[in-house]
């Protein structure tokens, strides 16, 4: 029965109507047109890499969220919602909102006042070349691998929904991204990210609307899930986190609070240059502070189009989905839940819109990766280590070439992602390697002037090495013993292991940084002005109206977050 239905669905999906093709083609024409239109405005390095630092808070805020809203997010987290239930929403709420508010209100002033062009650029100013170079290299590796993961997610959509050849869809989408980012730089990437943000919302929003109509609302959906999966809890966020065995994720609340909320999400949203670059393009410091706060409200709403379709899949799909690694003929994987729900409700026209939304998600994610990669390579690796003092024009040209090369290299990494049971497990592992220790290094550097150059470098290196070591131990022979040690229980599953891996790597980074600081000589205060909390004059907002203050809206976002936690407790 399931196999027959699967074949029917697949057969129907591969037939795109002419109107669907027109919608897909128009999107490609429009984004390329925008890229070529903006090329004339991206003449200097400041224009190409920083979008001239002229973006409003709304544009920067939407691009900030959209750069993260790739096909990986859409497909991977919808699949995670099917696999783990509403627990997956932690990555959108407590695992994102506090970090975004923290970025806007606390960290952004230092990034902005120092006029840095990147996060490694801040490390260069604060800690010197060694820490900056290490961070730039790890970031470059991570962005390329992330692009590969995005491509894999994209290839799955094309395979399931359209039956298109994987290579064809990968190359057409990737080359389009390469052309428009190489032409208009960050200007082009940000414009298209805003466009893609709206497209993703209006392409995917019909699924939860029609899904809830079919189930008779939230209660009806919950009842159907309980009927389909008796004895399993997919619809509570906290009440089943008391023990690793009580929930489908194999997670404990300490992993969510300390690993996800306090380390991993803080690391991602405050130091991953892919997202921070969008905010750095803001036209002034108030816009830079407000942009992540605006983004936080939209981020809070994303579960409607990502998590809810996964839950609706649990309630409505007549077949069960399986891990990609255990798939047999006629079966579908967790990551295909969103396309399957799309096929359930969308006929000609709407199907084209939904497919274009997924393609747009892929392109937004990839554009984010390659534009950030081009900036870090050009400014943090090429300029300090290979060719100093070249004309600005030369660096812009390098950025354009780097964009093209970055796309082609990342195509090669797409296949690395294919052997993993869940796409997200792979990405979370990557975040743990690099992002969690980086957060410790950047935060200590901003908050304590005593931290020395050597301490920054050795702390970051120790944190990264400890993270990779823990990952290898927990995934090698005798893994159970190591999981019980690092993740506090042998019952901890993949995502839980990643959370504790992030937590301990950040702790390692902080401890090593503090120890090295004690035995090394601090930099003079004069060299740290604008880089450290106690030596930086941040403009106060006492005279700004309440409704115009980022801190007010940050408070509103946190209050909304608390309400959501209570509702779905």
């Amino acid at each position, binding site marked *: 029965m399931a196999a027959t239905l699967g074949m029917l669905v697949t057969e129907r999906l591969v037939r795109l109507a002419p109107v669907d093709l027109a919608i897909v083609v128009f999107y490609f024409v429009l984004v390329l047109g925008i890229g070529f239109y903006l090329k004339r405005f991206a003449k200097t390095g400041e224009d190409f890499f920083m979008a001239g630092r002229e973006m409003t808070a709304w544009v920067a805020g939407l691009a900030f969220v959209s750069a993260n809203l790739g096909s990986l997010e859409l497909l991977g987290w919808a699949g995670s919602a099917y696999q783990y239930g509403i627990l997956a929403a932690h990555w959108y709420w407590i695992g994102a909102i506090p970090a975004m508010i923290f970025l806007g209100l606390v960290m952004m002033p230092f990034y902005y006042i120092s006029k840095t062009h990147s996060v490694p650029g801040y490390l260069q100013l604060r800690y010197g070349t060694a820490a900056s170079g290490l961070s730039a290299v790890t970031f470059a590796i991570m962005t390329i691998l992330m692009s590969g993961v995005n491509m894999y997610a994209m290839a799955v959509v094309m395979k399931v929904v359209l039956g298109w050849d994987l290579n064809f869809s990968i190359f057409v989408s990737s080359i389009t991204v390469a052309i428009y980012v190489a032409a208009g730089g960050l200007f082009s990437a940000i414009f298209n990210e805003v466009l893609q943000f709206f497209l993703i919302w209006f392409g995917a929003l019909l699924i939860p609307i029609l899904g809830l109509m079919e189930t008779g609302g939230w209660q009806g959906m919950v009842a159907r899930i309980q009927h389909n999966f008796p004895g399993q809890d997919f619809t509570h966020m906290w009440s089943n986190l008391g023990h690793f065995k009580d929930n489908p994720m194999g997670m404990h609340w300490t992993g969510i609070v300390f690993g996800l909320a306090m380390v991993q999400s803080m690391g991602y949203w405050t130091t991953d240059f892919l997202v921070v670059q969008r905010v750095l393009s803001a036209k002034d410091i108030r816009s830079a502070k407000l942009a992540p706060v605006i983004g936080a409200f939209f981020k809070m709403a994303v579960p409607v189009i990502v998590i809810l379709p996964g839950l609706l899949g649990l309630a409505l799909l007549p077949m069960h989905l399986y891990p990609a690694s255990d798939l047999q003929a006629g079966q579908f994987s967790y990551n295909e839940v969103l396309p399957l729900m799309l096929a359930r409700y969308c*006929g000609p026209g709407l199907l084209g819109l939904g497919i274009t939304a997924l393609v747009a998600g892929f392109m937004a994610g990839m554009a984010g990766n390659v534009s950030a990669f081009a900036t870090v390579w050009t400014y943090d690796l090429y300029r300090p280590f290979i060719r100093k003092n070249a004309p600005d024009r030369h660096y812009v040209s390098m950025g354009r070439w780097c964009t093209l090369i970055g796309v082609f290299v990342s195509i090669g990494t797409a296949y690395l992602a294919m052997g993993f049971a869940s796409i997200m497990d792979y990405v979370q592992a990557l975040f743990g390697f690099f992002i969690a220790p980086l957060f410790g290094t950047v935060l200590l550097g901003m908050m304590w002037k005593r931290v020395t150059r050597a301490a920054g470098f050795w702390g970051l290196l120790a944190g990264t090495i400890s993270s990779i070591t823990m990952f290898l131990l927990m995934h090698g022979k005798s893994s159970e013993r190591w999981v019980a040690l690092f993740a506090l229980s042998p019952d901890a599953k993949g995502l839980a292991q990643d959370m504790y891996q992030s937590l301990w790597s950040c702790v390692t980074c902080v401890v090593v940084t503090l120890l090295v600081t004690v035995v090394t000589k601090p930099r003079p205060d004069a060299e740290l002005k604008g880089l450290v909390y106690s030596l930086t004059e941040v403009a106060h907002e006492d005279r700004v109206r309440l409704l115009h203050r980022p801190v007010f809206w940050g408070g509103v976002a946190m209050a909304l977050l608390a309400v959501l936690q209570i509702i779905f407790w």
Partner: protein
Amino acid sequence: MSEKSEIIPVWFFVGVLFLVYGILIFASGLAEWSHPPATVLANLHAPVWWGGLLIVLGAVYCGTFRPGRNKT
């Protein structure tokens, strides 16, 4: 730098996208009104009202942020 003030606002492009997609989806919905596709809840004619919504939003964005009005 001064020429950047002449950049067409991104919101205008959003409007164009919505308007074109709205027209295509709305027309598609009307064309299939009497013989809807074999999807769940096809009787609700989602393409018609969703396409209509996109047309309205697209028209508002295009009108409000059309080139020459100097909004970014």
